[in-house]
């Protein structure tokens, strides 16, 4: 048996080691992993040439030998020489130790045997928290009895070592006291706490947490006096309670710990060097990128997640198994489950329009468009019916009404005398017309017009020259819903389905009548509020119970729209189709427009003719007369010859446009006009109409480009009323609806669909699910389709369909895919099991996550170069224990070398503290990255002169002087 080396004093303090065990779990946190992957030597592009030459001299085998050699020396040091007899195995241990020390010295690592600064458990605990930036939930046994009085215990945790009853009783005694006194925030002063002031405050990171922590102290009703007595672990517990996210969390994040801050800084300052180093270690470039990115942003080098769109690998995978891939798609489509799968896919919100669907759409364009049209027509039809219950007098009719009232003001005034406040009403009506007007005043107007129907009809006829319009205007003032039989039947069914609600708002007698006789015209006004309230339900009911075929619906829609035009006038919603109607019948419109004005201008022509006939030609009408004469020059010359006026004279006068100055000629012209009276009147009318024709061109132009005005709408309405049969024909063709349908189709085909388009498509597919399925399963469709997918995959042209099948195929063959990736050395070989678990299919992308944390060959960890208060190195000026976590004392190591650095640690207890008695240290204290034994793999930087360190040092000096009063050794 080997002689025991430890002195007896160690054995007198077993708690030191048990404590070490309990806190040691924290140690594992500083293990930062990295991955070893594969890159060829040719990738070493960033290495200086001289270094490259040097590297070539060191073969990988030699590199391995260094590690093997140290491993062997270590093994011999710890496990003795296995080649010799058991009894002599450990005899030359000191010699083995010397060999090990000598070897390590070659690689810049020195062995120091001296008594270091003894560190208490409390100090160690705070240093750890500062280093990691996190805090573990303190064990209840560590908390002081005083503090336990203020806090609720954590959910019961079984402790193997706490099984005897005595301990349980002791725990029960520490249940929180009922102390609900809330002390003022200002009464808490952390300067009074020796633990906080002399220990926590040395660390700038803890200082920043003070106020937040004190809020928790206040909420726990801890008395300011007791705050002074709290221990380090009590404060830890308060911090844990302050910063934990959930009740059952086992650790809490406090701040960016020294370790992470250091990693961030090193990776930011020396990115190029680190990149080149990792490339030299054959780390996969993708991993290097991710590692550097994560280290720079979060300060961690473990738990690296490589997220990657690996479509290219999926394509390669499927292409290599093209026959299998095609067979898989074919079988999947032909399988019995496919109908359900398709149905489920269609119902899914994230449904993707795939190739087969688009193909199916292309094949069934007419049917699909008909479906959309029917859907849109159903909407339109039901809206037309419901609009009967919302009838309002169109503004352009009110304009006509105002005109009528103005022309018959006296009559209206007399009529109003029956009402109180007649003047007020009159003023209101004239002020508001033709805009929206209060229904009660509209009612007055209506009464007046009903009393003077004939006058109103004549006025409307004069104004609009259309009896249809005059009738409409009369009707629109007393709006009563007008429905056809189908609409009434439909509403009857709806009401009977919704009896309960109906009877709540409408009298039961009406319901009884409807039950017996169906909905009659008499009740339409009565049920109007009910219909308006249930508009949406009626729409849904109609859509669900529509028994019309496409053609029937179209006819019904034409009829109801025409009815609407006759009763409701035209509204803004109809502008599109109405404009289309006019613009597709421009010649007719021009003609109609002229005719529309003929009556009006006939009177004007007669009036103008009479003026000329009685008063002769004047300067005002001279130009018009000259035009008339010019057009009939020969007749006029012949007529003038009878009065001895030469043709030359006439031509000259007409050319100079001077007739009324020449009395003789003026009289001859006057007589000529009288002689051709009817022709002249017609000429005058045509002149006016020509003017109107120019106007109509402008009107048509404005209809195309500008928004429709009330006047336009009035004109449209009159035009439609005069050309109803043509309008119905136009509705039958329904070009705007066709355009809308084509647009939807086009958007779907070109993958630019809106969510509404998608819903329409889903509804169409659901309605035609078996056709859709048969289409997909049809050999003539299926084989070319599958081949096309396979070809696209081969060419890496990933459309939604190919993407879908790739995803499903890869998912189905996940294990094989994993092997495929591994064979290509995309990831380390020992990832196989992890890889399977980590392939996540997220949306359209496959994301491979590697966060297992164990399997990468290279692990980067942060090591404290010097132990606390190590005075061995003068450069390393430690002002206080907080300086242990300063950047100048930290160094990143690879896993192997970090273990070596701890391989000769030896500690001993001193009273209630422990200290290092031997330790390995770096020869060069400026080394901040020790990646290997060669100088090329060691990065040096003088952190002592870094501005950040200088700032930190000054701050610490001030703090130590002010609060801690700590004296240097």
């Amino acid at each position, binding site marked *: 048996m080997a002689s025991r080396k430890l002195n007896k004093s160690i054995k007198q303090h077993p708690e030191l080691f048990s404590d070490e065990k309990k806190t040691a779990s924290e140690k594992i946190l500083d293990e930062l992993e990295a991955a070893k992957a594969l890159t060829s030597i040719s990738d070493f592009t960033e290495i200086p040439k001289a270094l490259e030459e040097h590297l070539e001299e060191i073969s990988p085998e030699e590199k391995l030998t260094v590690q093997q050699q140290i491993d062997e020396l270590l093994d011999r040091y710890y496990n003795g020489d296995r080649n010799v007899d058991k009894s002599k195995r450990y005899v030359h241990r000191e010699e083995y130790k010397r060999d090990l020390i000598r070897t390590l010295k070659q690689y810049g690592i020195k062995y120091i045997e001296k008594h270091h600064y003894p560190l208490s458990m409390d100090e160690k605990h705070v240093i750890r928290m500062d280093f990691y930036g996190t805090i573990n939930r303190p064990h209840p046994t560590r908390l002081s009895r005083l503090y336990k009085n203020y806090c609720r215990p954590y959910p019961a*945790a079984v402790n193997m070592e706490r099984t005897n009853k005595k301990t349980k009783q002791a725990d029960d005694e520490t249940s929180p006291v009922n102390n609900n006194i809330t002390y003022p925030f200002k009464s808490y002063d952390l300067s009074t706490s020796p633990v906080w002031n002399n220990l926590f405050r040395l660390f700038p990171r803890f200082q920043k947490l003070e106020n937040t922590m004190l809020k928790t102290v206040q909420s726990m009703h801890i008395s300011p006096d007791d705050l002074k007595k709290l221990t380090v672990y009590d404060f830890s517990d308060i911090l844990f309670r302050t910063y934990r996210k959930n009740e059952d969390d086992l650790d809490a994040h406090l701040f960016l710990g020294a370790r992470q801050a250091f990693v961030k800084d090193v990776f930011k300052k020396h990115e190029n060097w680190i990149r080149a180093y990792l490339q030299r270690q054959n780390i996969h470039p993708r991993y290097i990128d991710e590692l550097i990115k994560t280290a720079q942003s979060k300060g961690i080098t473990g738990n690296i997640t490589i997220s990657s769109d690996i479509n290219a690998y999926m394509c390669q995978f499927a292409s290599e198994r093209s026959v299998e891939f095609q067979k898989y798609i074919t079988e999947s489509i032909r399988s019995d489950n496919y109908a359900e799968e398709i149905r489920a896919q269609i119902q899914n919100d994230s449904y993707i329009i795939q190739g087969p669907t688009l193909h199916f759409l292309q094949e069934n364009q007419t049917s699909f468009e008909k479906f959309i049209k029917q859907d849109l027509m159903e909407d339109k039809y039901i809206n037309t019916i419901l609009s009967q219950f919302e009838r309002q007098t169109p503004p352009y009719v009110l304009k006509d009404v105002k005109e009528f009232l103005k022309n018959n003001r006296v009559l209206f005034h007399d009529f109003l005398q029956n009402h109180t406040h007649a003047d007020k009403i009159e003023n209101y009506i004239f002020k508001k017309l033709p805009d929206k007007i209060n229904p009660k005043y509209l009612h007055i107007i209506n009464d007046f017009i009903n009393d003077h129907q004939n006058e109103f009809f004549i006025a409307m006829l004069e104004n609009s020259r259309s009896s249809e319009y005059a009738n409409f205007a009369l009707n629109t003032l007393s709006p009563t819903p007008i429905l056809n039989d189908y609409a009434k039947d439909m509403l009857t069914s709806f009401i009977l389905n919704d009896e309960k609600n109906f009877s709540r708002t409408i009298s039961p007698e009406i319901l009884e009548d409807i039950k017996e006789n169906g909905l009659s015209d008499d009740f339409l006004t009565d049920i109007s509020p009910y219909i308006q309230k249930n508009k949406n339900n009626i729409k849904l009911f109609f859509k669900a119970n529509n028994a019309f075929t496409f053609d029937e619906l179209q006819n019904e829609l034409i009829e109801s729209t025409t009815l609407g035009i006759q009763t409701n006038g035209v509204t803004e919603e109809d502008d599109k189709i109405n404009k289309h109607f006019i613009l597709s019948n421009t010649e007719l419109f021009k003609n109609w427009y002229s005719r529309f004005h003929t009556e009006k201008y006939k009177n004007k022509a007669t009036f103008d003719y009479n003026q000329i006939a009685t008063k002769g030609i004047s300067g005002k009408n001279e130009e018009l007369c000259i035009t008339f004469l010019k057009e009939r020059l020969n007749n006029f010359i012949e007529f003038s010859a009878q009065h001895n006026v030469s043709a030359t004279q006439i031509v000259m006068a007409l050319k100079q446009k001077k007739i009324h100055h020449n009395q003789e000629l003026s009289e001859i012209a006057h007589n000529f006009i009288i002689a051709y009276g009817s022709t002249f009147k017609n000429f005058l009318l045509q002149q006016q109409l020509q003017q109107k024709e120019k106007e109509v061109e402008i009107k048509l132009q404005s209809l195309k480009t500008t928004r429709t005005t009330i006047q336009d709408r009035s004109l449209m309405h009159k035009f439609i009323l005069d050309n109803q049969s043509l309008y119905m024909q136009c509705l039958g063709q329904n070009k705007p609806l066709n355009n809308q349908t084509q647009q939807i189709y086009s958007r779907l085909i070109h993958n630019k669909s809106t969510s509404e388009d998608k819903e329409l498509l889903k509804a169409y597919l659901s309605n035609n699910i078996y056709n859709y399925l048969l289409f997909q399963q049809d050999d003539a469709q299926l084989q070319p389709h599958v081949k096309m997918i396979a070809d696209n995959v081969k060419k890496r042209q990933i459309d939604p369909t190919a993407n879908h099948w790739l995803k499903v195929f890869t998912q189905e063959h996940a294990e094989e895919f994993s092997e495929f990736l591994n064979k290509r050395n995309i990831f380390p070989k020992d990832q196989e099991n992890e890889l399977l678990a980590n392939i996540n299919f997220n949306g359209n992308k496959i994301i491979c996550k590697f966060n297992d944390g164990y399997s990468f060959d290279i692990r980067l960890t942060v090591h404290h170069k010097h132990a606390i208060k190590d005075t061995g190195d003068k450069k390393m000026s430690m002002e206080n224990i907080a300086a242990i976590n300063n950047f100048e004392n930290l160094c990143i190591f690879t896993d192997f070398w970090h273990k070596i650095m701890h391989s000769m640690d030896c500690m001993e207890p001193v009273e209630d503290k422990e200290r290092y008695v031997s330790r390995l240290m770096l020869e060069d204290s400026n080394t901040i990255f020790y990646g290997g034994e060669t100088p090329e793999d060691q990065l040096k930087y003088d952190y002592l002169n870094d501005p950040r360190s200088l700032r930190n040092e000054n701050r610490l000096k001030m703090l130590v002087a002010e609060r801690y009063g700590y004296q240097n050794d």
Partner: protein
Amino acid sequence: MTNIIHKLQNIIKTTSTITSTNIIFMQQFLKQHNYALLPDEFVEFLHYFNGISYNGSVIYGIYTNENLQDISNTNTSIIHPLHKDLVFLGHNDFDYLAYNQKHQIYQIIDKADFEVLEEYQDLSPALQHILKIDYE
């Protein structure tokens, strides 16, 4: 092995509820972490005693409770330069009990400086040493 199990059964009145699945998971865990695997003899022992806490000494078991001294969490907490060859199985006040896979031997290792204090070919004497049964 049988003797010490009988001896322990007289002293410690607990029964192991460990399953093969627990052991497989633990072996997988050790493999993933690059530690040595549990030796067959110790696996057999686990079927009788899934962890022991006796006389200030502890033999690790396989637990789901985070507060118990589980093989996985104790092994991750011990940083030994040759850990890839070792799996730690228990401890007392001063020493660890570990199995050295490389040399196929049970070792009593000093907690302070990882010096090997004693080596045993079999588990029984190693357990006796760490549990201090002979000292009573």
